[in-house]
């Protein structure tokens, strides 16, 4: 129905003369037009990213391709989501809006908290220090045992989020004297643009940046991510394609292994975690193969953490990993030549401690994430003087 039908004097410019229906109709029409102008300008490259963010618009994804019919193809992770306008990517943070792929995770974290760095886990990177852990909603993995599924399996707009931009982050880090930012809990791959922005604002102030990721990422963005990070913990969830397909949401293993090699070559500090799940990836032959691959491709000095599984999310029917299984995995890894093998999620246990690989001297004694004593002197064993790989400065003693 046209508005004019109800309009007694259609050409009158006076607002008070308009009927309510016509007023609302015009308001909606002009309002929509006004609201789409900045998005259109942004899409045409006429306004800056900062101005866009100030207007409350989501950030445009950095690695994607525009396809015909306003479709988009994301190149951040190997899933390569091809989406029509209005459709969300697998990771739930990227959305095609009128042919432009936006991330809704930018400046929009759902978790902000301080944690010990050992929780990442990072045992060879500034031990005993605190991190500001940051995570947004969404994840590009679909692990059936995810312990943070409330956040990882929801898009940011469905979660309670806390607007937190680079400037605020810098101010907070300096005020609270937080030496490190940790991108963890959900996979940082999905808020890659946000990480870059936080690093840009805080690195000049001496803040370090670490992440925990499944490393299911394409090479180009991964290399950029590595440039922005000081250290990374990669969760190598299993060592068979079958495990990744069955448990991690039909994802392939190969890109993860390639990413691990890329990370190692980039020179940032790397630690690996393997969550041992009873009857799924606790086969010792498989663990042996994994350790062999690590030694051959990443070297024997990359710390390897065997983490104890606890029933979570869609795998609540399983028991926790028996500790002897973890101990056996540790023995195998050590026999394969890995110098620093740890047991996580089991405390108290000697598997939490760091020992000198040369003289077997106890260097760092831990009780879960707590450091009971740190005997290292300037990154070296106090007894034999061997250099222990890692980043040890700023470490509490």
């Amino acid at each position: 129905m046209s508005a004019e039908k109800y309009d007694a004097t259609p050409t009158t410019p006076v607002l008070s003369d308009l009927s309510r229906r016509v007023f609302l109709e015009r308001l909606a029409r002009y309002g929509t037009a006004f609201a789409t102008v900045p998005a259109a300008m942004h899409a045409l490259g006429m306004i800056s990213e900062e101005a866009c963010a100030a207007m409350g618009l989501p950030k445009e994804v950095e690695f994607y391709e525009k396809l015909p019919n306003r479709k988009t193809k994301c190149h951040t992770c190997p899933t390569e989501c091809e989406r029509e306008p209005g459709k969300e990517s697998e990771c739930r943070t990227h959305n095609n809006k009128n042919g432009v792929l936006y991330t809704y995770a930018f400046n929009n974290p759902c978790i902000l908290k301080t944690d010990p760095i050992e929780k990442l886990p990072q045992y060879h990177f500034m031990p005993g220090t605190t991190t500001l852990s940051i995570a947004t909603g969404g994840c590009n993995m679909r692990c059936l045992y995810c312990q943070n599924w409330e956040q990882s399996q929801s898009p940011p707009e469905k979660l309670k989020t806390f607007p937190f931009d680079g400037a605020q982050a810098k101010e907070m880090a300096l005020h609270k004297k937080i030496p490190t930012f940790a991108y963890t809990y959900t996979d940082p791959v999905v808020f890659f643009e946000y990480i870059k922005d936080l690093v840009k604002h805080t690195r000049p102030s001496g803040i370090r940046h670490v992440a925990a990721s499944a490393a299911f990422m394409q090479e180009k963005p991964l290399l950029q991510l590595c440039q922005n990070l000081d250290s990374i913990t990669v969760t190598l969830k299993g060592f068979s394609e079958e495990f990744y397909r069955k448990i991690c949401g039909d994802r392939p293993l190969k890109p993860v292994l390639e990413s691990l090699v890329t990370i190692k070559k980039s020179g940032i500090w790397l630690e690996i975690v393997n969550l041992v799940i009873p009857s799924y990836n606790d086969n010792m032959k498989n663990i042996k193969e994994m350790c062999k691959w690590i030694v051959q491709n990443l070297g024997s000095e990359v710390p390897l953490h065997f983490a104890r599984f606890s029933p979570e999310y869609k795998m609540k029917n399983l028991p926790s990993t028996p500790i002897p299984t973890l101990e056996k995995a540790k023995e195998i890894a050590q026999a394969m030549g890995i110098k620093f093998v740890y047991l996580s999620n089991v405390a108290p246990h000697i598997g939490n401690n760091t020992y000198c690989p040369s003289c077997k001297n106890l260097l760092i004694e831990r009780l879960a994430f707590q450091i009971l004593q740190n005997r290292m002197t300037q990154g070296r064993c106090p007894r034999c003087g061997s250099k222990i790989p890692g980043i040890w400065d700023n470490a509490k003693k």
Partner: protein
Amino acid sequence: MPSKIICLMLMFAVIAPCLPADELSQLQEAWVDKIIAPRHGEMQKMHEEISLYNLINGLHLTKQQIVAIVTLAQQAKEMRERYLGKGNDANAAALQQELNEMERLKQFAEQGKNVPASTPKGKRHHLRPNKSPKRAAVAAPPNMQHYQQELKRLESELDYVLIPAQKQVIEDFKPCLIPPKNLKNPVRIGQAKSNSHLSQWLTRIRNSKHEGYSLRLALQHLLKQAEKHQGSYKADERETILDKWEKGVAQARAMSDAEFEISKEELAQNLEPPDKKEKLQKIISNEIKTHNLPGKTAQFLLNPQIIPLLRDRLYLMLQNPNCNTQSERWQAESHCEDGSCTEER
């Protein structure tokens, strides 16, 4: 047995209103004596066993450690029995002497004679009907100092068996029926959830609409809950805590959401009311240390009750090297798809 208890309870409910207060209390006592008292020891033993199991589960002991602890606990048990035996002999003689004295007093009473003035006044108390028979045994106790020294020696041997992190867990352990989350289910690597109930209540109260008097009432209610666990406070202590909490809530409300998220754990920790029981515990443990007395390690791991529990655990570990507990074994076997759980892993 349960039907007997129900009958007694029903009878009590019917009869109670018709009885005078004195008889009522006697009946209550009789009821406690008949039903509760015989099982009290059983309940206490069960409580202790559950608590010890919780500690054992939290310590993640190895087979070698279990063997060593059982050996030392066995030695402690034998030593305890030896000392108790000595004590019994001494006590038996003293008790006999006490009974003889009472027999003499009975004769005076029977004959309606006055008790001679030479009888010490203290002895007369034993004629009171409610006097505990435990008090009657006033024998010289066995040499406790020597016993404690021996126990301390065994405890120091445990130092070589346990790793420092395990000792830390024992030091922090409080006997419990339901283990605290940080013992049974510690926060895991990469886990976002926090176990801190303090930050949870601070978030709730921050987001609530309570203001002024209503806020004070809400905080008073919270403090009452806290007092159940941490011991009651004096009126002025209570006011100080409530004032501090009000300031804390105002501080939390003045923060931005992001700032509060980052600071809430720290803020909640500052607002934690003083734990009187814990304070007392610290004083006691300091005293124990200064007097070189056996500590918490001896209290729990040299307890004779731990021996059968550890033996069971060891048996289970030897039966199935891949599983720590019975439930782990059952679950692993029932969920094993390819039979690999019984194979060499």
